[in-house]
């Protein structure tokens, strides 16, 4: 069931994997129908995969996709180039931090991609016909000798090989002083927000030379800075609501109808600190690395270093559900602080029916939690242990008690293999997991549509 979309099937076991820095995937996103999957990498490239449609008449039943339903490369383009800030004498990385698809309105697809500073709107369109039969030019485009033209013809469109064209339509630059960490398309279809460490801007998709600043938490004196914005997202249905998370573990729901500058939140979501478990690392591990609205718009999913939490928008006193992602790391926080792993930013996602949440961990592991039962499962995205079409087996980290075969000890975890970025198909049980420079796509053939 695992599909390694990037590397050829070579036996790598005797070679140390050489990972080109530029190939490291930095974001993954399905479009609204799930037919397209976009990935961005550290080298500034975007690769779009398209799901193969089922051959007509063969598999009519829901859930039977046979050989089709796989994702193949549809288009590749260079979205951002390395840049240089001359004023600060600093390089601007071309790494794609986020990709967000716009809802489809015509035959073309649009997506927003952003690096640390600049957001770009790309139009992805297909061309499968070309005009033939020009009067003045021949097939190669050379001018015809006029004396040979004896009659007029009307050029006709003839089918050609499919060509996918990607063109930049808008470039939204100079909007951010600090590093952009999130972009989110509004449900109104006209605007989107971009958030950096200290500010959130709202843009109109058609206007590139202006944006509205809607949140600004920069203190007058930068030395007083103690909190930064870590993620932001628009509500899926209410175009006036958005949420942003902070490095102190708080969530702020803002209503743009209340005021132009939403520095004052409408609702503040914060879990009271447990005084018993306070340590020097408490604040760092409470920093929220990702926030996502549920599809219903009723709940929020957040990820901090050790847990994933579900919040009810109607209750700001604390999360309604807390899931331990890798609690066994709590006693290792000092080492993880030392090697900077404690600052890793994991993403989290909902499934299509908001009944399952998923997030990544170390050692190529990722976790899925069933909200109804509260149970979690550990899975692995690692080519050595998953062949295409093989059933993904669950893994376990040994933390005491009876040790089972296949358990991995905490000390053997590979902290360089981190699953930070992932996406869940909007309507089916298909997930895309980015593991360094590899993309894994897993499909649930048993319950493909997740009608639970």
């Amino acid at each position, binding site marked *: 069931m695992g599909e390694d979309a990037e590397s050829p099937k070579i036996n790598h076991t005797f070679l140390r994997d050489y990972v080109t820095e530029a190939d490291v995937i930095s974001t993954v996103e399905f479009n609204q129908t799930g037919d397209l999957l976009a990935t961005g990498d550290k080298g500034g490239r975007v690769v779009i995969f398209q799901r193969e449609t089922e051959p007509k008449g063969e598999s009519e039943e829901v859930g039977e996709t046979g050989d089709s339903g796989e994702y193949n490369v549809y288009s590749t383009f260079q979205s951002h180039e390395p840049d240089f800030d001359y004023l600060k004498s600093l*390089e601007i990385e071309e790494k794609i931090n986020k990709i967000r698809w716009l809802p489809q309105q015509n035959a073309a697809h649009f997506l927003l991609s952003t690096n640390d500073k600049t957001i770009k709107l790309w139009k992805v369109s297909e061309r499968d016909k070309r005009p033939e039969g020009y009067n003045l030019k021949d097939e190669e485009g050379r001018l015809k000798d006029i004396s040979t033209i004896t009659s007029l013809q009307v050029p006709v469109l003839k089918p050609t090989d499919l060509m996918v064209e990607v063109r930049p339509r808008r470039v939204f630059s100079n909007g951010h002083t600090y590093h952009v960490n999130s972009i989110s398309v509004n449900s109104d279809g006209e605007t989107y927000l971009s958030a950096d460490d200290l500010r959130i801007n709202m843009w109109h998709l058609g206007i590139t030379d202006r944006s509205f600043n809607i949140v600004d938490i920069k203190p007058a004196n930068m030395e007083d800075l103690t909190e930064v914005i870590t993620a932001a997202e628009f509500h899926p249905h209410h175009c006036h609501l958005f949420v942003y998370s902070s490095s102190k573990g708080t969530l702020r729901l803002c209503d743009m109808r209340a005021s132009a500058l939403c520095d004052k939140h409408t609702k503040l979501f914060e879990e009271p600190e447990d005084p018993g478990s306070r340590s020097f690392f408490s604040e760092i591990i409470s*920093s929220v690395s990702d926030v996502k609205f549920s599809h219903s718009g009723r709940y929020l999913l957040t990820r901090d270093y050790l847990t994933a939490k579900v919040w009810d928008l109607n209750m700001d006193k604390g999360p309604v559900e807390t899931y331990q992602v890798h609690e066994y790391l709590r006693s290792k926080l000092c080492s993880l602080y030392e090697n*900077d792993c404690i600052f890793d930013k994991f993403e989290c996602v909902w499934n299509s029916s908001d009944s399952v949440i998923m997030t990544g961990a170390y050692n190529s592991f990722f976790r899925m939690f069933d909200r109804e039962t509260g149970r979690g499962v550990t899975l692995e995205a690692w080519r050595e242990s998953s062949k295409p079409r093989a059933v993904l087996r669950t893994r376990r980290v040994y933390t005491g008690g009876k040790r089972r075969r296949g358990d991995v000890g905490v000390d053997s975890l590979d902290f360089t293999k981190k699953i930070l970025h992932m996406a869940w198909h909007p309507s089916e049980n298909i997930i895309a997991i980015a593991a360094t420079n590899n993309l894994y796509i897993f499909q649930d053939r048993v319950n493909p549509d997740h009608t639970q």
Partner: protein
Amino acid sequence: MQRDNMFPKGTKRKFSDSGEEPVSSSDQGPSAASSAAAVAARTLTSSYSLQRQSLLDMSLIKLQLCHMLVEPNLCRSVLIANTVRQIQEEMTQDGTWQIMTQALAAAQCPADRLVATEVLCRQTDAAAQAGQSPKPFSVVGLEEGYHAEEVVMEGDVETEVTMSTLSPVSPQLSSASYLAGPFGMGPCWEEEEEEGECEEDEDEDSEECVSEGEEGDRDHLSADSRTGEQVFGTFEIKHPAPPPDPALEELFSDVDPSYYDLDTVLTGMQSAPKMGPYDLLESLSSHGPTTLSSSSSCRSDLNELDHIMEIIVGS
């Protein structure tokens, strides 16, 4: 004054070191002194205070300058700085902080490190604005046994020491700067330090320390460190340097010299001087407080420094 050229890789800081060698390296200085603090505060749980001290040192090093070309991660810098503040608050409450700062004041020529760090923090702005190749200012000068001010004096272009972020960084450089504010210096995390840190981490995580440190080296792929100047300070209003002497007098009028080494780190945490990076640089331009004059070779030529400051600040 003899300076140790070697970055103390993996060297366990011992209390005796602080007695034998006043400042063997800029890193060992405060560390040795902080070991002294730990010893002195043995009334506290010894392992807890050692652990806390180790965490403080680790955090300060993480905030240090690193010669990378990309802006550091602001979130990470803020979280580390908050951790430092937290430790400092706790240490202030149980009295170990005062002991440590006194021990640091006893360390020789703290201002040298002070100068070096500030100069280091200034670098790219200076280079960019002056439009010249990076000026050689020294933290590296420390390791060559020069006093920092001396190198600053001479060193418009002649000395081979470089403060450019483009130059290969020796670990000594990053070890120098405890001194700039957490937002005046960039977070830095270097391979060599990592191994050193591993050794110094004496508590229960030491095993993981070693293995994860190495993994962390590989893992630490991104160039996410940079002078914090770039992160925090660049977008503050760049004011031209005020007349040095009056500002300096005012600045130092209520400053206990023992705070020099750490006060930029602690800027905002203590009532005493809220000195930003620019303020400290301006402190160069005077003959300054008594600790500076404690060694005659530390004296700097005012005009030379003014000239250098002008280039740096770009006015």
